[in-house]
């Protein structure tokens, strides 16, 4: 696709995304659309590590939870003492003015993002010195450990969870407000990632994915790049988590904040389904997954999680390229790749011999 066409596509999508809340038929489903943006954010942030860098991270959900809790705690402590809040939260929720609410939300998200980046930097500089499989197993335990910790920590509500302040009436309905917040967040994340992938950083992490030893031998500080990549991923996830806590109002430590079996697994699946290591793959994967989930999965009556495991196996084993990856292999020219027919024939014949 050429430059102006691409520009038109981006603009068209953006306009469509902005118009959705204005369409009366769709208005009851705006929360669902807001969830769609969250899913896209999940997939995009997982893909930084999993797709572009070739490092499985099963514990990214930690950043989501950290951001969510940090935001909620800041919102709570900024205008209330803990006792007051417990009282209010028992009956009706605390009423805040618009300015108070937005300040709390903004400050909380910033705190959460900083915390997440710190965690990623400290843990990452240690664990990411090792190769991929050690990192993968390590992150596997991380999400669960965080969930256990949150369930036992009284300051953040322990197992009974935490309630976030209600959206002030002046800001309108929950649906449109959070739809726009997540839309902005998703667009910013997409733009930042697009720029990152196009530059030196993208080349470096792709080199790590392709052959880490060679990349290091060429003088690349692999651990440093890996840590930064994890920090970027954590940063955006923490922001997402902060807003998400306000969207769902009630934060449960294991079912919402550190929800490994649902969100944590979905982000892996969505990114691979759409095509890991591509810019649009995670977006498409998340959209396909969310839409089909809404339409069909509810009819599986509890078996949907079994189907989820099955789906991961099938996608990983039989369809590892994902939707975009498959399209790209099918029509490479469309993706701006120059194909040397001669070299391609040689490659195909070599693959046939194996």
């Amino acid at each position, binding site marked *: 696709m050429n430059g102006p066409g691409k520009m038109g596509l981006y603009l068209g999508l953006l306009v469509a995304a902005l118009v959705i809340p204005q369409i009366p038929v769709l208005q009851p489903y705006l929360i669902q659309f807001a969830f769609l943006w969250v899913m896209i954010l999940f997939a995009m942030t997982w893909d930084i590590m999993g797709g572009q860098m070739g490092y499985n991270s099963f514990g990214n959900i930690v950043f989501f939870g950290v951001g969510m809790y940090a935001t909620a705690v800041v919102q709570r402590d900024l205008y209330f003492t803990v006792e007051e809040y417990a009282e209010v939260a028992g009956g009706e929720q605390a009423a805040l003015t618009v300015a108070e609410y937005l300040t709390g939300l903004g400050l909380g998200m910033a705190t959460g993002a900083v915390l997440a980046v710190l965690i990623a930097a400290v843990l990452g500089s240690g664990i990411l010195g*090792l190769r991929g499989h050690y990192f993968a*197993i390590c992150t596997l*335990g*991380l999400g669960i*450990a965080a969930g256990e910790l949150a369930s036992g920590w009284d300051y953040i509500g322990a197992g009974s969870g935490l309630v976030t302040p209600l959206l002030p009436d002046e800001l309108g309905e929950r649906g449109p407000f959070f739809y726009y917040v997540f839309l902005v967040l998703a667009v910013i994340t997409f733009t930042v990632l697009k720029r990152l992938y196009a530059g030196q950083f993208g080349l470096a992490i792709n080199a790590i994915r392709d052959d880490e030893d060679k990349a290091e031998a060429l003088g690349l500080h692999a651990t440093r790049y890996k840590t930064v990549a994890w920090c970027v991923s954590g940063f955006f996830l923490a922001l997402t988590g902060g807003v998400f806590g306000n969207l769902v109002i009630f934060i449960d430590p294991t079912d919402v904040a550190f929800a490994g079996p649902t969100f944590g697994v979905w982000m892996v699946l969505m990114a691979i389904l759409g095509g890991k290591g591509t810019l649009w793959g995670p977006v498409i994967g998340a959209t396909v997954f969310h839409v089909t989930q809404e339409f069909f999965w509810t009819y599986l009556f509890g078996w949907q999680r*079994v189907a989820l*495991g099955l789906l991961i*196996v099938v996608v990983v084993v039989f369809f590892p390229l994902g939707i975009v990856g498959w399209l790209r292999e099918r029509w490479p020219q469309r993706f701006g790749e120059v194909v040397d027919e001669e070299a391609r024939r040689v490659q195909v014949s070599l693959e046939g011999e194996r």
Partner: protein
Amino acid sequence: MGNLEILLQAPIFSVQLLIDGLLVGSIFALAAYGMALLWGVMNIINISQGDYVILGGYVTLTLYNAGIHPLFGVPVAAVVLFFVGWAIYRMVIFRVVDRDLFISILATFGISILLQQLMDQIFGADIQSAESGLGTLFLFDNQVTVGQIKLVAFAVVVVVGVALVLFFKKSRMGQAIRATAQNARAARLMGINTDRVYAMTFAMNAAICGAAGALVVMTWVIQPFIGLAYTIRSFMIVVVAGLGNIAGVVAAALGLGAAEQFAAFLLGAEFQIGFVFGLLVVILLLRNMVLKRQRQVLK
């Protein structure tokens, strides 16, 4: 940390914890041995390892509910899991053996979720265990109690372990597996059917885990979602011991078992799983620090 004082004033408690820990650790050794086997022979890190353990536990539990003594569950679970493992290899794993670790980790991750959720649907999410009906031993003036079933379990682990070592030393299949682990390509050239060897290895690993699971359900409890903890434990043990080091695996497993018991006593039982995961992070960080001394990059 209030319990530390109890431990200092009554040292006999630490004997209790130590015995419990060592006996539990012997079961970890079985699962870890299976993981080292897969890792060494097929270069697969099996995230679904712990779920085979739990599945073996549920097989035993089903027998127990049908009125059969759970000790018979050990061979039955091993046989059932052997076929489950074989089927999983034939359906999924053989497609990912030759591919990179990224794919095989994700594939076994998917299998792990699939098994967890299946067990949740079929057996329910409750914590369950099978009562063996064996008595309890009292030692040191009744200050230390040891369930006899734990001793039986320990004996079973020893028998299974010896049988496995003999299998790998003496039998043709065991030799073929070791040859494939050393060099799969050379083994193939020497006429070994490596595909069969891989299938056998994977199925055997599942069987070992199944036997371990039968012991777990008798001495401890099972629940559909705690399989992951066994995967982590096995991985940790193998990382500490190194591949192909049986004595190391046993020592690390016993040590982990004891450490967990002490941690659970000192920090409170609810933090035991958290301790396992925390320990994993610490071990990996330490390993990285040790390895870092030997690494150099351009400044």
